[in-house]
């Protein structure tokens, strides 16, 4: 079967690529697009390390076919900072030491950003259930939850 031609947008930039019909979005990102910030921890949608957004919706890129990106907007961890300016979540993760090994961090940040986009004032329980699809084996989640809640509070303050 011939490769498929995909026209899409990744982190706001127009992108074209060829992919196998069975190729996952994660493989396309990490392979030919060279965006290795999204990680493969399980390839079954259980760990969330490959989290990206598709038209603003949080998805596991290991469960999405690359061909499904056609005509849609993809955002990855690489698009989160604006040049040298980190997103408030990125900054807060650093300040709170909300990462140890860092392998889950990309997915955690993408998922957290997606949460704050729809809920600017989440409770601790809402944060915990939203992030329940993102495994972290290092931190016990404590500092991650604190970082997300504090970012939300600061972003609400800034938006006032």
């Amino acid at each position: 079967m011939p490769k498929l031609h995909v026209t899409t947008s990744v982190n706001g930039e127009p992108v074209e690529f060829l992919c196998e019909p069975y190729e996952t979005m994660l493989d396309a990102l990490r392979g030919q697009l060279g965006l290795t910030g999204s990680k493969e921890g399980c390839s079954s949608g259980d760990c969330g390390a490959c989290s990206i957004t598709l038209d603003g919706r949080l998805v596991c890129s290991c469960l999405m076919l690359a061909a499904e990106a056609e005509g849609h907007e993809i955002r990855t961890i690489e698009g989160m900072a604006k040049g040298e300016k980190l997103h408030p979540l990125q900054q807060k993760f650093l300040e709170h030491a909300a990462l140890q090994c860092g392998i889950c961090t990309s997915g955690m940040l993408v998922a957290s950003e997606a949460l704050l986009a729809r809920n600017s004032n989440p409770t601790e329980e809402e944060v915990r259930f939203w992030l329940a699809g993102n495994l972290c084996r290092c931190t016990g989640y404590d500092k991650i939850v604190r970082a997300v809640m504090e970012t939300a509070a600061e972003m609400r303050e800034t938006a006032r």
Partner: protein
Amino acid sequence: MNVVNNKWIGQRTIRPDGVDKVTGRAAFAADTTMPGMIWGKVLRSPHPHARIKSINTAKAEALPGVKAVVTSRDIVDFTIEKGAVMLGIQDMRWMCRNVMARDKALFPGHPVAAVAATTEAIAAEACKLIEVDYEVLPWAIEIDDALKDGAPILHEFNKFDGKPSNIMGRIESKKGDIAIGFKDAEIVIERSFTTRPVHQGYIEPHACLISVAADGKTTIWSSSQGQFMVRAMTSMLTGIPQSDIRAIPAEIGGGFGGKTIVYLEPLATLLAKKSGRPVKMVMTREEVMRATGPTSGSKSTVRIGARKDGTIVAAHGSFYLQAGAFPGSPIRGAVGCSFAPYDIPHVLSEGFDVCSNRSKVAAYRAPGAPIGAYAVECVLDELAAALKMDPLALRLKNAAKEGTKAAHGPVFPRIGYIETLEAAKNHPHYAAPLGKLQGRGVASGFWFNAGGESSAQVNITEDGNVVVTTGHPDIGGSRAGIANICAELLGIDYKRVSVIIGDTQTVGFSNLTGGSRVLFASSMVVTQAADKVIATLRERAAKLWEIDPEAVKWENGAAHPVSPNAGQFEPLTLADLAEKAPSQGGPIGASVQLNTQGAEGGFGTHICDVEVDVDLGIVRVIRYTAVQDVGRAVHPSYVEGQLQGGVAQGIGWALNEEYIYNKDGKVDNPGFLDYRMPVCSDLPMLDCALVEVPNPKHPQGVKGVGEVPLVPVMAAVANAVHNALGKRFYSLPMSPPKVSAVLDALTQQAAE
């Protein structure tokens, strides 16, 4: 101790590798490529136990796109007859057979061949074309099955008590005479426990990218807990000299002990050598779960005798630990650590290393210690109840302190165990009210900690900043700790210190990131290197000022005359002296290599509250406080992170994690959906109370902190469940089906 002003030590600085990790730029094992790269795949045994009669790779080699195939014939054999060849704690006889089965496949997932091809799909297809003629043998998975009469024997050469056996070894720690001790006891409690093997659960699967040039020069890019371990094991298993292997430590996506041995690197090296192409190999999660080391499952019996006043007079523990396919379960941790928090006159602690047809165990956070502590700390809970004593008071009465001789050998120096008990007792958590179906448990734990070989270089850049190179992969933020210490010693801003992890050919030998040794050992060598640099800086200033170096002091990042008597000179900063370096003797830097000593053991005491959902049989941890003597918290956030991470892993071990085997002897849950580690919504905030009793043998007072926090957890949770239900679980995990069964039985009892 040489720390004076404490400007950076104890600060919650931003870690040096932080920005790379929050922006996706950090390069982990699977994140790199090389020109001409091809893909390697492993063919694995489907059988738990089988003799390999022949392997035919001809069809695979003929498949278009296949560039190389390797089998055990290509791997250096460390024959059993010639005896042990040790690399650290690993015997290369088992390591060579674990990376590739030789005469027998010993667990489902055991590698039997590997293929490299132009695509992953072709490599996987080629694996299917390899013909392996197996003679399937009877197998044993659980300890009881491996120990019963007539059990299938994994290693026929092995004898225990003169008979062929799967018990591969026995060790003991002994103090006094337990026969005498138990005679003196007024109350004796003996209980037996089982725990299940649990996986370290690092989110990053094992991966590597390796090229071998025509002249044998080899470059390994992989993530591990020790690039020098990777170099040495790969060298020994392939025959390539260490001087030709450059092992580059990629960022590592979690290890917890599981990345202290090699799986893929020797195979990828041989495939790269045969094919002449760089070879990349990445395990799937399923391969990680089937073929890499969990920690042992166990069967333990613990007997403790005490006087009515709570004085413990005798203790006996016997710990049977699963080693998996090859000898080497962490019996030393179970035997040595279990009773170490207590001053007991008569102790016998025995460990048995049991092989069975499951993947070879690997280290997991305080290997063996949590298994032993689970049994001992549960028995202590029962003892406290029988004596009508507060469980912390019982521990306080018997606590080890300075001068206590531990059964495993050492006489403790100044330790902080009692301080952890006092802190737990006085913590508001311990007095907080509990609701219905809630319970509270406490438990303590000990880990040896480790020193050993470390190397570091401290170099002053031409513009007067600092680059520190160490040899230990940083998993949990150790670079931040090193930067704090180096900035402190040199009296400069933290941001002027860059800390990197060198590869095997650019920094001196450094042992594994393991044993809770990294910050202890690396800060010791970095301190000595920084001291040398400061001596050079003082000499340079002295020369410029034409005074004696002894008349120059280093303070706040600059050389000053020690007193007005020494002369009146403007301070010379690091930048000044770096600028003048070319004309004043050349580059400024120092390198230090040490076999570090003085890593004293660590102690922790935990408080856990649970609530039992009686409808679903789910135990939920609703509050948790970890108290630990951490020596000196060089970077408190990452110290807390170690405590919180260890606690989360222990909660998983206590409540959910286990391998489910099917009737064919294969793991039925080799993925994160069914092997259920704690997720964010399973846990509460995890509180930490850091007790700082500085290690007198370390320049900054550092003690290892990474492993202790897993040790008490399962017992703390089990004791809390007992407190909630009045019913004790003697086997882990306390998973919903088991809890439901107990709740049903309790309901039935009540009805009758």
